[in-house]
Structures are given as C-alpha cells and as structure tokens.
C-alpha cells in the first residue's frame, strides 16, 4: 500500500525524519506515536503526498510519488481518506455538504441515505445543516472522519482523530475505524492516547510505530 525506502524529510533543509524504510501492508492497522513535534503529521503528509520526501523514495498504492502529475495526485487523494489534525472545512457549506465534498469534487453521485447513515454513525445527524464554524471541536473531528471515509477509500490516515472527544466518543470512532479495517482497509492513526492503542489491540492485530530520534521504529509488544 504505502512504502518508504530510506526516505527522509526536512523543512527548509533541517532534517526532521530520516532513514525511514517501512511498508504498510494492505489491510494492516497501525498506530503512530511519538512526542509532540517529532513529525507524526509530517509522516502522514508524506503518506498522502501533501509533502514529497526530500530523500529516498515513497510509493503510494504502487505509484512512485516523485513522478506524479498534479491530476494523479488528485486521483490518489480520492483513494486515501484523511482526517486532518486541523480539520479543514469549507465554512460556507453545511456539514452535510462538507462531508460529501469528496464525492462532489470527484463528480460522483451522492446517496443522501448513505450520508445520513454515515452521519448517524458519528453522531452528527442533528447537525447536518449546521455550518462548520457552529460546531464544537469534537463535532468537527467526527465530521472529518466521516468525510475521510465517504469515498470508501483503500487507506485511511487519521491524525489525532480523538484529540477533542471524550472517551466514549473516542471508543466509538475507534470502533468505526476497526470496522473499516475489518472490511479490508488499511488504517493508520496518529495518537498520543495509550488507552486507545490498548483498546484497539484487544480487537485487532494493531502495530505501533514510534517516532524517536528522527527515525520510525516498530514498538515492541510491551509498547
């Protein structure tokens, strides 16, 4: 699905991540942890080609990211659902329209019942007509997750999807991601929440990637 070959990344010459060689297998479930500012978001951005590796090679869904055209990047994004840490929405559209936005820009028909079901799953049925600025942080995060999965992507990358929600909602969102993983989708979740990781490990064979010392390492079973 996503492969790193000795890849590295630095903002403006300052090396942030280096010597990353790993492969995220189809259908795998990964957590990504590490102290704040170590590059979790940066790593995920490399995974959906918001950023391009400054060293080594990254290939996504079998495509080398270096020689991708602009339209190919757009096509790629349709196969990867991303929950952004800063949850970007279009403030002039309703929540429902925002969640359906990936379908809209891909010129795909939107099934309103599917949209309602999806919003029900993340507990946002009531807010379907609300504008994003009127939502709480947690509601925005749930909407971001709904938007990430609406295209039924092969890969789901979630950057702190449970950062602003209570434990109960965290479990619910995790459950959604686990369900998706059981349907065969590759899932990567960046999080600080060790409880969440433990909870997930009791249900799926989740692996943990830890960023430390500018490198990505597979964490041991003990975590």
């Amino acid at each position, binding site marked *: 699905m996503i492969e790193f070959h000795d890849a590295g990344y630095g903002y403006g010459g300052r090396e942030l991540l280096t010597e990353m060689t790993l492969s995220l297998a189809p259908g795998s479930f990964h957590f990504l942890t590490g102290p704040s500012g170590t590059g979790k978001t940066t790593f995920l951005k490399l995974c959906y080609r918001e950023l391009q590796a400054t060293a080594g090679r990254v290939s996504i869904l079998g495509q080398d990211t270096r020689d991708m055209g602009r339209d190919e990047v757009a096509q790629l*994004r349709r196969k990867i659902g991303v929950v*952004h840490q800063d949850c970007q929405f*279009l403030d002039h559209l309703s929540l429902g329209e925002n969640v359906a936005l990936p379908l809209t820009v891909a010129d795909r028909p939107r099934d309103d019942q599917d949209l309602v079901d999806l919003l029900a799953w993340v507990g946002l049925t009531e807010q379907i007509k609300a504008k994003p600025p009127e939502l709480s942080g947690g509601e925005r995060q749930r909407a971001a997750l709904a938007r990430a999965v609406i295209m039924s992507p092969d890969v789901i990358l979630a950057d702190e999807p449970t950062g602003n929600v209570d434990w109960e909602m965290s479990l619910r969102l995790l459950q959604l991601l686990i369900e998706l993983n059981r349907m065969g989708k590759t899932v990567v979740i960046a999080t600080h929440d060790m409880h969440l990781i433990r909870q997930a490990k009791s249900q799926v064979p989740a692996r943990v990637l830890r960023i430390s010392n500018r490198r990505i390492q597979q964490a041991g079973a003990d975590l």
Partner: protein
Amino acid sequence: MKTILLPFLTFSESAQGRVVPPSGFTARLTVLTAAAMAFLAVFALALSLATGRLAERWGNELARASTVRISAPEDQVDAQIKAALDVLNTTPGVASARVLSRDEEMALLEPWFGPSLPVDTLPLPALIEVIETAEGYDGEGLRLRLAGEAPGAVLDDHSRWRRPLIKAASRLRFLGYVSLILIAGVTAGMITLAANAALAANAQVIRTLRLVGATDSYIARAFERRFTLRGFTGAVIGAFFGTVAVALLPSAQLEGGFLTGLGFSGLQWFWPCVIPPLAGFVAFLATRFAALQTLRRLM
C-alpha cells in the same frame, strides 16, 4: 440543469458552482465593468459598420465619377479624342478610359430631357469615361496635361473631392475595429485581475478542495463558471443599453447623404447580440488562463 447559448455556461445551483464561496463586491464590480465595456463595444461596432457603409457607397459612386468632355471644332474632334485618350492611358492612376457611344450618352441625358430628345439634331460633345484605380490619379496634373495635348478637353471630376473623406471613413472604420479589439483586451485583463483576486481570496478553500481530491480543472471550472456568467450578464445589460442609445441617435440622413445615420441598418441590428456571448467567452478564457496559472503556482 438549464443550458443557455453556450455549452460551457450552465446556469445551475450545482454543487460545483457552490464549492467556492460567493463574493458580493467583486462580483458586482465584474458585472458592472463588463456592462460598461459592452456599452462601449456597441458604439465601436456602430461606428465601424456605419463608416464601412459610407466608404463603400462613396467608393461606388466614385469609381465611375470622372468624365472628359471634348468640345472642339468638328474637324478636330477625332484628333483631340485620340490625344486625350493617349494622355489618359499614360496617366498613372487611370484604370481605363473609353469613349462613350452615342447611345450611352443618350442614356445619360435621358433623366434630364426625357426619351423624346431629338438627339440627332443636337451637337453633343464627345464624352470619355475615366475609371480610376484604387489609388486614384492626380487631378491637377491630368488637367494640365490635357490642356497641353487636347485644348478642347475638359476634365469633369466633381465628385473626386470625396476621395479624402473615403480615406477618412476607412480609417475610422479601422479605428472602430481597433477599439473593439482593445475593449475585448481590457475586458480580458480586468476579468483576469478579478479572477486572480478571487483565487487569492480563496486560497484556503482551494487547499481544502485539493485535500479531498479536486483536480485543478475542477477548481478552475468553479471559477470559470462564475466569471463567464458575470461577463455574460454584464454584457447583456451593457449591450442592451448601448443598442437603445444607438437607436435613439437622431437620424442624420441629411440631404445629399453626406452623413449616413451613425447606427445600424437592417440586419446589422443583430450585431449587438453577438457581444454578450463574446464577452462570456472572453471571460471564460481569461478566467481559465488565470486559474490554471495560479493553481499551478499554489502547489
């Protein structure tokens, strides 16, 4: 979806049109400028068409305008005709010179004297018809040479004074066309600026659209649609008022037709209808160009 006039101009509250937030002020400004430009375009068009008509009519009258009349004692007439023809045929700017037959002369005189003219008894002077080339001849020079070679020859070129006016009319028509091109250019430039401003104002929206998989051409279309519609709408308003203004011009059909009405005639009234689709097309191209450029830069 309702399609009007142009295939790329679809009026609809479709999702694509709505992904970019509405922008009240620049929108109104674009419509206003397009209206003003279309208004001016109607006048430039009227000017071009009217001066074109003028130049054509005068040109036709001029083509066969000159004659050389030979009035000489009977025994010299043939010699002088020959001398005059020699002069004419060697004068630069004269396309052809030909002696009119008696029948042709009678046809020329008929409007004045009626068909029952006892023409055989009249001592009619010989007439040579002179047809000019487009450049025309030097009237004074020709007159002098004729005076030297055939003293009885009189050059009658009374309509030739219009020649410089025809030149002016053609020049005016050309300027009218140049104005139309300039108006189209200014419209394109203005729409490009407006589109660039809109793109810059929506950088965050564009970023979000990209993150969810929108291609450049999808994003560009959202803007194109808008500006095409604005350019078209503005031009409809402007062209309408411009045409009304031209229609209300006093008809300047003076005696002698020196001024033709500075408006449209007949089917030419349909020309202003071409302006709005053209404005829409210019807006479409300008926005597409601006959007694809900017999107490439906003990586």
